[in-house]
């Protein structure tokens, strides 16, 4: 299928491309920081969507891959002197490997059982890392400042990290689109609708789910490395925050699960709302509750999310809103 001719393919990519390009051009630190957080949210939400949106498997604890990949990459950079991009890939690969191993057990569970098990994985990972000396135990790791020298100092390193994140996010969106429009993706959608019927039709559900889980774990691992490198330190409390997982979930549902554009819209929308609330005196402490209200309203009234709703209401726009 000539995907490069489809407007739906280009829209998310071009949006991110232009956005990153503008930030790089203007070259202002604050703008870069804001964009970094947003692009990170888009990348994480899109990765989760590959699992949740296409197979229907809800991973509540998906942040575990961000944390484990982040730790691995950080360790490789700080303690072993690896370069950022190689370490990030390594972080992603480790996350993928963990997903493969954990998935063997956990993907046999359906629905809510799977969702709960993923929370447990996150908790287990945090407990493990807190006791794991090479990763700094409960205090975590701090970056060796010489690591930044490789990139021309801390300032320049931050720009390099931003560029890598920008590229990673575009790759996630690309992969998300390609998966959705492949035969493999059709099988995943069938699993989402009715896993048993899909298997009767010949979809090898166990293998398909595992591959999807691994893909959806790889990118958070890469992103984690980039984020914590930028941060300068990593500790168990920051790396395995369950509420980040939850926010990823809300972003996917808000934007529209199962679409490529949805997580992007949802991530940007949610972050914007969250920032607005954090600065407002009344709502400052209530952003988790607000996220809950948003999630509830979506589930009850617009389960297909913003993009899904528009696609339903304006079928003509479907070509653009994948």
């Amino acid at each position, binding site marked *: 299928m000539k995907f490069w001719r489809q407007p739906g393919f280009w829209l998310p990519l071009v949006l991110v491309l232009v956005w990153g390009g503008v930030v790089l051009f203007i070259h202002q630190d604050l703008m870069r920081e804001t964009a970094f957080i947003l692009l990170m949210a888009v990348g994480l939400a899109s990765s989760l969507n590959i699992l949740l949106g296409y197979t229907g498997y809800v991973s*509540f604890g998906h942040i575990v891959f961000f944390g484990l990949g982040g730790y691995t990459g950080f360790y490789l950079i700080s303690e072993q002197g690896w370069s950022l991009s190689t370490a990030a890939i390594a972080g992603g690969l480790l996350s993928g490997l963990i997903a493969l191993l954990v998935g063997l057990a956990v993907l046999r569970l359906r629905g*809510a059982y799977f969702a*709960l098990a993923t929370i447990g994985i996150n908790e287990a990972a945090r407990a493990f890392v807190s006791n794991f000396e090479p990763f700094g135990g409960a205090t975590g790791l701090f970056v060796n400042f010489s690591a930044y020298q490789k990139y021309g100092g801390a300032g320049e390193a931050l720009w390099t990290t931003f560029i890598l994140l920008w590229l990673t996010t575009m790759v996630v969106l690309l992969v998300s689109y390609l998966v959705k429009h492949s035969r493999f993706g059709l099988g995943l959608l069938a699993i989402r609708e009715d896993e048993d019927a899909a298997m009767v039709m010949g979809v090898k559900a166990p293998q398909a789910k595992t591959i999807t889980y691994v893909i959806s774990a790889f990118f958070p691992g890469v992103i984690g490395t980039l984020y914590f490198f930028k941060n300068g330190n990593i500790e168990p409390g920051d790396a395995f925050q369950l509420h980040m997982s*939850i926010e990823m979930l809300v972003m996917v549902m808000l934007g529209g699960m199962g679409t490529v554009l949805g997580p992007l819209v949802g991530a940007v929308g949610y972050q914007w709302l969250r920032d607005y609330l954090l600065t407002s005196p009344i709502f400052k*402490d209530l952003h988790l509750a607000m996220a809950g209200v948003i999630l509830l309203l979506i589930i009850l009234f617009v389960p297909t999310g913003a993009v899904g709703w528009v696609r339903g209401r304006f079928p003509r726009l479907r070509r653009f809103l994948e």
Partner: protein
Amino acid sequence: MWSQLTASLTDGLLLGFVYGVAAMGLTLIWGVMSVINLAHGPVIALGMFGTYLLFTHLGLNPYLALIPVAGSGLLLGLVIYVVAVHRVINAPHLSSLLATFAVNMIIIGICTAVFSTSPQNIDYSLGSLEVAFLTIPASRLIGAIGAILVTAGLYLFLYFTRPGKAIRAVANNRNAAELMGIPSSQVLALSFGLGTMLAAMAGGLIATFFPFTILSGGPYELKSFVICVLGGLGHPLGALLGGLILGLLEGLIPTFMPVSWVPVLEFGLFVMVLLVRPSGLLGAK
């Protein structure tokens, strides 16, 4: 070491009764309407806070406070059902899962803002009891007795009252029950309310044991899931049994490894049971 182990096990066993009550709330909802109430944890925490507030501000005996706490728990459950669950009761399970999860976030979010995350404590001690070579805090004993009474009460309700029988009918076969004239929505709401009531009561009892914060519900929610799966979904007695087993395990573990590993072991147990015997010890309903 043996006396310490016995003390630990006894403590765990008594705690296990209360865990069982908490899990019973979850398993009841699960059994009646196939909904996993992810707001379970926050409701337990609300039970803790409710008892605490009544104790500190009204000077009410914490055990007497259980009554209004239970009533509020019931009411809260009805509200949650009507607002969040009813619309998605027939939708794919993902919807009700996320809906109750959203309620979880809302409750935690609001309560964190109101109560902050600093730990609270109920300073009410009834002393302890000497049994053989063991010193058992009276609060534990009363907690266990309370749990047994609540279980008995639940069974009496389910088997000897009309609403209780209606609940069992709906749990068994919702369509058939509707055809027989049972208003299933009201029964579902009541069941949900009962489930949250049990959770709140368990919270109230736990508040007499340990200090707590608004986030304390989380670990108990995880324990409840493990217990429900262990005992078999929809079986209140299974929940009690599972609670006792988990309590005993918790009494056993600290002797051999640091306490921070407990959640990891509980998770491991959870996954193992689901893979090996998903219907639980007493078989799923």
